């Protein structure tokens, strides 16, 4: 169990303690303010080099990480995989070794293979590795920004601040995660984060879209979706991953939507205070109705904008946390 990610890698949320997660969230709160300034930049990671390696297409995660690194004044080495020697058959190890030879402090890695960041962390033990999404395994910063966004909303309603509230607003919170859990790295990170903070997590999906064996997972599988919706404080809608072969696992998208989509009809079951999240990109009309996605209850835009402060916090803690640079200068 990791009690602080200071100076550590961030590969998975599975082994992070409540304190470690709260530390990231509290640090991110401080960076929210930086992002509201006219000059959105602090010198925290000046002189540090962060490599951004995206072996799989991504827009928001990549932009968000690189923006975060730049706002911390780090130098960013961005490898465009499509035009790199990876296309010429260079191995992951050689790519990493080459980037490392340029002198880097951290690598932000997105890879289509589950576990690639874990492997990379063994190849370059002196470099901090931050998992930006690996296969169907984990997407730690997405999980963190999801709980961060939820904490913000709950704190605003309770007339307190996120930092003041710590993890207390999650105690007994009913979280319902719906959709393609089988293929979802976001679900694996979300479940770990919510559970570590004290929430009660329930999941709902067709049997074929659940992981094969949920033994040991801190979740309850829901059989009656409508009843679960009625009791939910947070509904996390997952993207249906058609590109990962989900098409074979349900009879049709229409049938999936009918039984598991967050439709306008189904939303009526929700409490008025319920919060809806989606990691994006959305399949509007499939897992979530277009109008539902645009309801005030849906905090999808907030999730996106929180991506930057959360990633600033993660970079700050993992990279600067390993040195004696003292208090963060924001």
């Amino acid at each position, binding site marked *: 169990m990791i009690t602080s990610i200071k100076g550590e890698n961030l590969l998975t949320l*599975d082994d992070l303690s409540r304190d470690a997660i709260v530390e990231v969230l509290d640090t991110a709160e401080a960076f929210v303010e930086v992002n509201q300034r006219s000059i959105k930049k602090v010198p925290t990671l000046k002189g540090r080099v962060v490599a951004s390696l995206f072996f799989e297409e991504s827009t928001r995660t990549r932009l968000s990480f690189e923006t975060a690194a730049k706002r911390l004044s780090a130098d960013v080495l961005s490898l465009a995989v499509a035009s790199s020697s990876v296309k010429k058959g260079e*191995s*992951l190890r050689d790519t990493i070794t080459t980037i490392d030879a340029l002198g880097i402090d951290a690598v932000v890695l997105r890879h289509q293979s*589950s576990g*690639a960041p874990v*492997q990379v962390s063994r190849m370059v033990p002196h470099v901090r590795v931050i998992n930006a999404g690996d*296969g169907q395994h984990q997407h730690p910063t997405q999980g963190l920004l999801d709980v961060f966004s939820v904490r913000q909303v709950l704190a605003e309603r309770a007339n307190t601040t996120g930092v003041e509230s710590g993890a207390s607003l999650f105690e007994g919170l009913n979280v319902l995660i719906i959709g393609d859990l089988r293929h979802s790295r976001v679900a694996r990170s979300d479940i770990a984060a919510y559970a570590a903070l004290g929430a009660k997590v329930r999941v709902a999906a067709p049997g074929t879209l659940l992981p094969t*064996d949920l033994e040991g997972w801190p979740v309850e599988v829901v059989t009656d979706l409508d009843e679960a919706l009625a009791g939910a404080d947070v509904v996390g809608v997952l993207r249906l991953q058609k590109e990962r072969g989900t098409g074979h696992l349900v009879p049709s998208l229409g049938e999936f939507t009918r039984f598991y989509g967050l439709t306008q009809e189904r939303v009526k079951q929700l409490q008025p205070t319920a919060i809806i999240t989606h990691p994006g990109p959305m399949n509007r009309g499939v897992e979530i109705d277009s109008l539902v996605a645009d309801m005030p209850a849906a905090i999808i835009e907030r999730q996106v904008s929180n991506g930057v402060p959360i990633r600033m916090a993660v970079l700050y803690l993992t990279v600067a946390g390993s040195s004696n640079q003292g208090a963060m200068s924001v």
Partner: protein
Amino acid sequence: MSESIVLRGGTVVHTTTTEVADVVIVDGRISEVGASVSVPPGAQQIDARGCWVGPGFVDLHAHLREPGNEAAETIASGARAAAVGGYSAIVAMPNTEPALDNPVLVRYVLDQGMLAVIDVAVAGAITKNRAGEHLAPIGEMAALGVRLFTDDGNGVQDAAVMRRALTYARPMGVRLAQHCEEASLTMGGVMNEGVVSSRLGLSGRPALAEELMVQRDIELVRLTGCPVHFLHLSTARAIALVLDARAKGLPVTCEVAPHHFTLDEEACETFDPTFKVHPPLRSASDVAGVRAAMRRGDVDAVATDHAPHAHETKDLAFDEAPAGMLGLEHAASLTIEALGTSDANPVLFFQLLSRGPAAIAQLRASDERPRHSAHGGNVQVGDDANIVVFDPVATRVVDRHHLAGRSINTPYHGRTIQGETRALVVAGTLVVENGELQ
């Protein structure tokens, strides 16, 4: 071959009994076994005290990679690794490039095998190019002495093709060997399906895939009467199915691989592709089940599934890496581990590593057409001298950079293992002495 060797003071392990005795080898045969033997003049004396002296091990399942992938292993290097492991004979699997699916290639491997330090037999492919469609020339390969046929790596998926192969092969006195995994259930899978694969987000290969194909093939054996050998069974249920079929008189045998009785799916938590293998490392309860079956004597053979891969081809992301791990050098030690480091039964040990597999490969003196010399014997006067002197208590730490084969993909790097080949005699020649290749 004129050299004389005396193995001094070891525990000689016969088929059912053991005795402390000397073993004298002259001109490639055992000439004397007893407490006080006459030492031929000039004979080389090997101190075998504290060791088991038994028939050299026989591996039913070695991927030697030649022809086609000599960077990973060759027939010569694989044979050296096997010798270090105590093997006097190995069966070369046919999934080379091109596949061993015709007499020309079989003859090539047999010829190269003649130059190797131990005996090399061949398993031929069941179907052309191991594609599971058209029968390979099983009869022509059998005429060269091939006694095992398999499309290993791929099970024969089409039940009609498997039935046809069994019906065709039955009168030839050969045995078909099957890699049992129903492909429709393992498609895209890279590790055992279960709690660990679910957590790691890796696609699973269910135990069910193996068990279903074992069941199917047992029914095909019942129908055709042709013997089938089940390769590397990895689940307790699969072994139980074979046991049940054998009890009903069907000609079925099975082997288990060291990694399936010493490592479980938790090893994949590190995402180290060294631990990727097909069938996959199973649950801890299946590992315990396989061990229990071995101890009960329910398993016919330990077979290595030795699968070398050049480092650059294996050192990839877990889902992109090829399946397979090394086995020949450490299989006997790992068998000790499974049978009990303090109470391993030597008779059972040699049954699993030598006599059982020799019977399946038909390399015994009593078989119709043994190749080269006979293996898996009783260690008695007149036997061909294929003898291993195995120290069952010596321990060592596995170092992947000090192996006799060409590749380094052992899953046991850093592990302390017990048991070591002290000496190996193949056809009367001392191949390993003091644990070192000669």
